[in-house]
């Protein structure tokens, strides 16, 4: 398995772990025991907004750790730049991720029109962001394996 494939797999696993850990943290510290959260726009917006920096910082730290571990454990020369294949795969993965994001975003907005509470919309937002991250990583793994 190449370094790029391993990097994409680590990215996928880290995305899933960050989502699970953040969701569990929010549930046990902020949501647990509280009532009337269904219409609390401030609370849900704050939860979503905090998620972005948490995801970015955690992913950067995990990638640094992955590079350090790979440097000491792998005999393969680690690439220190992205070539045309990497950029092409990155763009195609981002395209897939954006398609999913657009459709899910429309669905999230539709929940309000269908009469659901703002909580349902924000939960759909959270699933949209998480799903887009996961689809981006899965697309990269698939494209590195299959080639084009």
């Amino acid at each position: 398995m190449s370094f790029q494939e391993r990097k994409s797999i680590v990215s996928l696993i880290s995305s899933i772990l960050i989502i699970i850990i953040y969701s569990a943290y929010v549930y046990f510290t902020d949501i647990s025991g509280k009532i009337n959260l269904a219409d609390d726009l401030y609370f849900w917006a704050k939860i979503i907004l905090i998620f972005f920096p948490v995801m970015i910082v955690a992913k950067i730290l995990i990638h640094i750790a992955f590079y350090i571990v790979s440097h000491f454990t792998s005999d393969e020369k680690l690439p220190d730049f992205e070539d045309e294949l990497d950029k092409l795969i990155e763009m195609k993965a981002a395209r897939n991720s954006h398609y999913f994001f657009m459709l899910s975003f429309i669905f999230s907005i539709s929940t309000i029109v269908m009469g659901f509470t703002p909580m349902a919309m924000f939960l759909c937002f959270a699933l949209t962001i998480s799903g887009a991250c996961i689809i981006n990583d899965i697309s990269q793994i698939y494209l590195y394996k299959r080639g084009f």
Partner: protein
Amino acid sequence: MGKNHLSNNIRRLRFDNDEMTQQELADKAKVTRQTIVAIEKGKYSPSLELAFRIAHVFNTPLEEVFSYNLEEDSDKK
């Protein structure tokens, strides 16, 4: 996605050039080893610029490194 009609002789050319490794070729062509692996296996058709760079590394004309299978293309029509 269409079938890749581009074939290459990179494996043979590497062998003829003092058994050059994929990493050495990648370094000279300024790409990662993964890209050379993908091109050799026919999983990726390189850009024109990269194709010329690879041909330049082997000091051969482009058509000796890459060839396009016109027959397969015309079979589809």
